[in-house]
């Protein structure tokens, strides 16, 4: 038997998951132009794996995108290697923007669902006011 409190709890799980996705996306965008220094790998794009089920969502973990880094030939760059190549992070800003819009819309939808459940609880309480 499900109740409106369950509905609100599910919305809350959706809200926190989407907010975490937004955090990770922000971190990706902030690191879009990170370079590898001293032979180390630059920033790898991160993605959130989400586990869903009949009672809300939870965060499965953060996975790193294993796609290749963006290597640019910039001999003048102080971070260039012996061949004059600089490796930048594998973040695609456009892709991140699209994901961000998706996460932000999903967040708003969860807020709408939460408010709807709240409205229903309030109207259930009016039954008592005869």
């Amino acid at each position, binding site marked *: 038997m499900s109740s409106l409190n369950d509905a609100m709890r599910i919305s809350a799980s959706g809200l926190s998951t989407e907010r975490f996705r937004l955090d990770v996306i922000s971190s990706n965008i902030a690191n879009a132009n990170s370079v590898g220094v001293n032979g180390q790998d630059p920033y790898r794009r991160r993605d959130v794996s*989400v586990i869903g089920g009949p009672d809300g969502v939870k965060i499965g973990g953060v996975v790193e995108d294993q796609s290749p880094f963006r290597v640019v030939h910039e001999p003048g760059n102080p971070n260039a290697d012996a061949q004059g190549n600089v490796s930048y992070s594998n973040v695609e800003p456009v892709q991140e923007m699209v994901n961000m819009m998706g996460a932000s819309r999903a967040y708003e939808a969860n807020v709408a*669902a939460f408010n709807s*459940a709240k409205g*229903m609880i309030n109207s259930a309480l009016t*039954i008592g006011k*005869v």
Partner: protein
Amino acid sequence: MRIIDNLFGPAVDNYGKAMSRATLRQSLLTNNLANVNTPGYKRRDVSFDMTLSGEQKKLGLPGRDSEITTDNSSIRVDGNNVDMETEVMGLAETETRYNALTEMTSNYFGDLKSVIKGS
């Protein structure tokens, strides 16, 4: 005793059933929305005849209990089939329906009260 049983009997019972069904639908649609970005998630819903079923039971017709259905179609590459617009629309509809039901229940009790007080 029988009069009182009739007073509080079928109508309130049916309102209650309809409201609990609206609650169930609300929580399923909420779950669909929470899982809008979960790969492979399939949307769930209840069948729609919630007021009809109560009436059918009252008339002695075979009624259907709320039945959770899973839609196994796919509209996205990741196997998820949640359509945000449909879910939000369903939520708004369920909320309005629930408000109507609470209003009706409230009116019912109000009527009872005015009968009891005789004013």
